[in-house]
């Protein structure tokens, strides 16, 4: 097995290869269960878009990976979202849902457009009901960030939205459990535009994370909870001085299947291809994401340091 930067690179290359091979798994179910919101089915595509865009843009992933990421996004936009028509259809069915906007923005930033959806989004943005929507604080922060990225004024200013999150209060680090862990990682994702702008992390939060992230990495490595560990590795790559924690990366790499799939927790789940995809696509996407960001930081630090005499 490789080590160091090579190991980090290989995790990402294998994960992206798996995602591309299994791209048919990103599908909109024909008849979702009635209790699941229709737009919940778009969530995997939203994550694919947000993360795929970062991988595509972080050229360090290598031209091969950049091209795979682009092909995946193309597939998602044209084949799965019918060039945005499915998002518009979802918006018509649940007019006040923010999901179409969240899924749309990363595609829009890459040049994919759906003008009718934009009209609906702009109308929504004028509604008092839209700003009043009751969501978790970390989600509210995400909505404010995505409004900014879309080009409208955030309904709740980002600093105000941030103030209500768990992370902004910098609480006792020993109280962190799985749910709080995901609140932490997503707060960091929203603050940094999913790793594109590490400087978006306020200094006090960066300092807090630099202190306690090593403990959480150690903990979730030990618990073999690869999905959350991967997200925490993304957070590490967003810090002013990433540690690229060798033990966490080595454990993460070892957990990856030879074909590139990353289990959620422990080993690979059993089941048919679709159910396995639904369980492992997220940690595998996160593995590609963490790798791309860590590679980018490692290489930019190399190029920033003075040349040896």
């Amino acid at each position, binding site marked *: 097995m490789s080590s160091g930067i090579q190991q980090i690179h290989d995790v990402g290359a294998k994960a992206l290869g798996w995602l591309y091979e299994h791209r048919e798994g990103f599908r909109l179910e024909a008849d979702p269960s009635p209790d699941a919101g229709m737009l919940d089915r778009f969530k995997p595509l939203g994550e694919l878009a947000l993360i795929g865009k970062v991988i595509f843009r972080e050229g360090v992933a290598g031209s091969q990976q950049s091209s795979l990421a682009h092909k995946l996004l193309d597939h998602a936009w044209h084949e799965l979202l019918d060039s945005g028509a499915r998002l518009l259809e979802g918006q018509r069915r649940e007019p006040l849902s923010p999901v179409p906007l969240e899924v749309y923005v990363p595609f829009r930033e890459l040049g994919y457009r759906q003008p009718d959806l934009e009209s609906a989004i702009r109308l929504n943005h004028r509604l008092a009901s839209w700003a009043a929507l009751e969501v978790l604080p970390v989600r509210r922060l995400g909505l404010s960030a995505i409004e900014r990225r879309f080009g409208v004024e955030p309904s709740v200013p980002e600093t105000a939205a941030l103030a209500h999150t768990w992370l902004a209060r*910098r609480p006792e680090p*020993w109280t*962190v459990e799985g749910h709080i862990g995901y609140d932490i990682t997503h707060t960091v994702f929203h603050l940094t535009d999913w790793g594109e702008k590490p400087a978006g992390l306020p200094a006090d939060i960066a300092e807090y994370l630099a202190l*306690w992230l090593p403990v959480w990495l*150690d903990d979730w490595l030990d618990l073999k909870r690869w999905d959350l560990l991967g997200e925490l590795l993304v957070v590490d790559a967003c810090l002013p001085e990433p540690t690229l924690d060798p033990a966490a990366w080595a454990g993460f790499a070892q957990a990856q299947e030879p074909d590139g799939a990353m289990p959620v927790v422990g080993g690979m789940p059993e089941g048919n291809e679709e159910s396995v995809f639904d369980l492992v696509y997220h940690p595998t996407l996160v593995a590609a994401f963490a790798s791309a960001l860590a590679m980018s930081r490692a290489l930019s630090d190399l190029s920033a340091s003075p040349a040896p005499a």
Partner: protein
Amino acid sequence: MDQKHASSPLAGAVHDLATEVVLALRSGDHLATVCGAAGIDEENRTGIAAVRVIGADLLLPSVLYGRHPHPGDVAVLDRAVREFPPKPDAPAATAWSHWHMISTLQRMAPPAPGATAPGTYAEPDAAWLEEAPWQAFTHQLSVLAPLAVPAAPSAVQRAAANRAVDLSRGFVRAVRRRDWLQAAGAGRWLAATGGEPATLGLDRGLDFVELMGGHDPRVTLHVRAARLMAEARAR
């Protein structure tokens, strides 16, 4: 001997001793002997072995309240030092514990003129501690929590003071793993040496550790010691 919580006579004796130390720390007084209250005298082999486990914390109430220790406790600690010298290949933590028992006896109860001291024992090496990863560092420090007392300088204490952030991380790790004894020991070190990041929330953390793990009197002992030292530092 209260063996409700004990899996062996030795564990029962350790439990009883720790309970008596906690009672003495709580009362702020040290009229009765810890060993006497736990039913241990110089002839009680299991009890002496238990004192070896508790170590210099046997005299902790006297150390923290600045009182003379009870002669009975001094005698039993002295006996434990003489009967259980570390073997040459003993783990470093055992050597440190032994060294600390001797130096505590010398500080708290110098031998009367003409009496024989338990002998000298060179301060063990601590370089291995300085190089240990924060996880192992905290684990070892926690085993050596009896050395976390005021006015008892040692290489271990210097290492603890130099690595407050690592020790704080170890405290978080121990709480997350529900290893209350390790958490209490790490918290005691931080209370003794200071320097922990404010966001650790050490005082609430110690309360939490006592709430969750206080059924073990060894946990309560460390938490009580930590509180007394933190109060003294705040004065």
